[in-house]
């Protein structure tokens, strides 16, 4: 097994540019990898909200709930979309010998 992700498991020298299909798949993987960072950033937003003990400018709890649960749902949907896309693509790849089912 090769350690480099663009290299086929064995045989010929890898081509520098990938087919559209593989390229999409790879970018999808990138998106999946970036998702947790997006999530962390979104969940860090409440740290910026005013923490006013007098409750004059404080964010109402319902809005806070709405924001957090909306982020949550967004992350779940993104993860779901990615999961299905990855499954579909890996299913396509299985018919093609030499392609790596699990990009590194």
């Amino acid at each position, binding site marked *: *097994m090769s350690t480099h992700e663009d290299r086929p498991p064995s045989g010929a020298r890898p081509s520098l540019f990938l087919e559209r299909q593989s390229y999409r798949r790879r970018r999808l993987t990138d998106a*999946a990898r970036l998702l947790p960072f997006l*999530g962390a950033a979104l969940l860090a937003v409440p740290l910026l909200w005013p923490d006013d003990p007098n409750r004059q400018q404080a964010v109402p709890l*319902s809005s*806070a709930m709405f924001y957090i649960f909306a982020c949550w749902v967004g992350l*779940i949907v993104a*993860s779901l979309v990615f*999961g299905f896309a*990855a*499954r579909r693509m890996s299913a396509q790849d299985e018919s093609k010998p030499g392609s790596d089912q699990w990009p590194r």
Partner: protein
Amino acid sequence: MATLNVLILVCLGYVVLLFGVAFAADRLAAAGKGAWLRSSLIYTLSLSIYCTAWTFYGAVGNAARSGLEFVTIYLGPTLVMISWWWGLRKLVRVGRSHRVTSIADLISSRYGKSNTLAICVTILAVLGGTPYIALQLQSITLSFSIFADADPSGLYREGSSVFWVAAGLAVFAILFGTRNLDANERHHGVVTAIALESVVKLFALLAVGAFVVWGVAGGVGPMMDRIDASEIGHWNVDTGRWTTFIFLSAAAFVCLPRMFQVMVVENTDEGHLRTAAWAFPLYLLLISLFVVPIAVVGLDIMPEGSNPDLFVLTVPLSQGNDWLAMLSFIGGFSSATSMVIVTAMALSTMVSNHVVMPIWLSTQGGSGSVSGDVRHIVLLARRISIAVIMALGFFYYRLSGGGAALASIGLIAFAGIAQILPALVGGLFWRGATRTGALAGLTVGFLLWIYTLLLPGMGGVLMPESVLHSGPFGLSWLRPQALFGIEGMDPMVHTVMWSLSLNTIAFCVASLLSFPSPLERLQAAQFVNVFDHSVAPRGWTGSVAQSEDLMIMTQRILGAGPAHEFFQAEAEKQGGRASLPEPTPAFLERLERELSGSVGAATAHAMIGQIVGGSSVSVEDLLAVADESAQLLEYSGQLEAKSAELTRTARQLREANTKLTQISEQKDSFLSQVSHELRTPMTSIRAFSEIMRDTDELSPEEQTRYAAIIHDEALRLTRLLDDLLDLSVLESGRVSLNVGDDTLRSVLDRAVSSTLAGTSKTLTVRRTKAAERIPLQTDLDRLGQVFINLISNALKYCDADEPELTISAHDVGGHVVIDFVDNGSGIPPGSRSVVFEKFARVGGDKAGGAGLGLAICREIMQRLGGEIMYLPGQGGAAFRVRLPLAYQQAAQ
């Protein structure tokens, strides 16, 4: 209102239901059916073991106390799940390819199979799990007390009920988790039961939430207004706690033994992670969806001072909805029991595998032969450790007083278990992480956690107030909740910050400074580059393709015939119409046993694992395989030696046989020759004696001539018989030697004169008498006999016109060598090898000897410790006599 008895009956009924589910699932799995048992849905639901009574009761309590802070505990795992591509995928792959049985096993395996490390992680996990167990005990006890308060019979006492709850849960966990032993530590039954419990607790919480929103508050809009109007109606979360808890819950999600158990050990297919990556966050979202509404409504309608941890139960009760309350109670009971079962299972596995078994095996004298008793010992160890773990939880509950908020107890456990994180993450991603580093980090983090969080949390019994307020021995910078003089921090944030940062620093520094052992370095490479060393597993759903692969492999090992028979028998056993059996666990086990008979257990396991389990071959496997190969090599070496020995013996036997045949032939020819030699003189004796008897007119001359012939022949017979007798005496070795001292010269003198005396033939004997002054100590008569024989042979057979015999003697290092060379035509090459044989005569019968002379010479020389041989290439017939200067008995 349900009475306590009804409640207990419901609990027991629920437990029986769980048992039934687990039993049925195990049966299905054993029969190789029920692929849905290994589906990603079951996997995801089993992950929700994360949501315990802390979630079910404590989240609402937490929300009622500090607003949205509760949600951090579910946001952390969400982040971990959606970043599965980074971390969990690797963790699961490592766990599967190295057949890891617990988190302690993983850590010890990564750091060169260090059992010290495994024990450390086990202790940490047990102590970290203690507050968590106490939390479950407390929640169940509290929920009982709610019903008991309303129960008119009033037999309920809190103190004893905690004990009974703990004991009941212990029995429950023992019955559930230690029914059987599985090599992979996989428990389909338990996982299925847990999946059911996840559904129950989610359904219960959603039902209460829906009741609160639509039944009490009157819809989503009014509910939102009510939330904003409540006392927790504004965003008021400490930023430090928000960040810390998200991080802490993420860390604990990975490190908790029970999470590791369901996530890694019970994982049957890596692909499940892809589903769980969105499905589990969804579960978490659903379970926290109604937490704030329940908390707000609870704060509204419940009397001042009621425990917010129990709002999930008390709100439906106060609204008179007994059935909902019962459902809620079952949900809480369910979340507590599932947590206790899996935690107890995971911890007891760790304790038995890493603490009890090494000790037990070492007390057994380290004998490698492990009998069937071990299973019994393992089960017993696990049962006892479950009991001990439950007892620890019980004592923690008693010591902490049982009054703390559920969430705060849970966080203490989280902070403890998170101390594994640096060693775990470092082990998976950094090849330079060493055992020493892991030990240092764990120790530092663990001690800091105990000192700053666990002991202060357990009240004044174990840590005096004075230490808490002014530090040990008055050292104020060592105050447990204000280390290094930094005050004002939240205790949880304080502990997590200090323990994890110092833990990480110790881990990194010690790793950088130490040098790992070879095994450790090997394992490090295997773990960190796990994707290069293992293939993506094909999952365990049996396909015929796998059976074909197995068949091909089996044929190579067992041979085509036996392999076909075996597979046929298995296919019939499974009752299938197909010619190949389904790769069920039972079939694989039998196949492995069959193969291990031929190639060794470890090799067989590795081979089947390669085809079916998708687990890559670990270092242990390789070592075991190498062991087996070494044994095989040694065995074949022994066989080779034996076969060489046999070959040698066979050759010796063949040689002996040839010799015997030769001797037998010699004997036959000897007998025929003897009879022939005896017959010739006898014939003439008989003939002449008959003439003398039957003929009357014989002249006296004739009579004298015939009598002389008879006499001569009789003499010849006598001589022959004498020679034969002499030879047989010599050959049988019964000859007695008269050893005497003289010089070679005088022996030769006597021999020459006695041979040449009274003969008509002429023979010139050339000698170098000066060289013959060699003193001898031997049987002089016998030696003389040899010399006489050789000289008379020269006299008889030398065919030169003027026969000459040259006798030369040399002293060669302890031996004397005497050569007799005549100037005749010598012995033809073809006869040279037989001249020393009996009755061997060269050149016909003309000399009239019996052919025994040289045979006798050879025997004599052998007796005297010397030898006689023919010397080719000397011009004529040449014999060399060689004998030691001094006769030695040993020379015989």
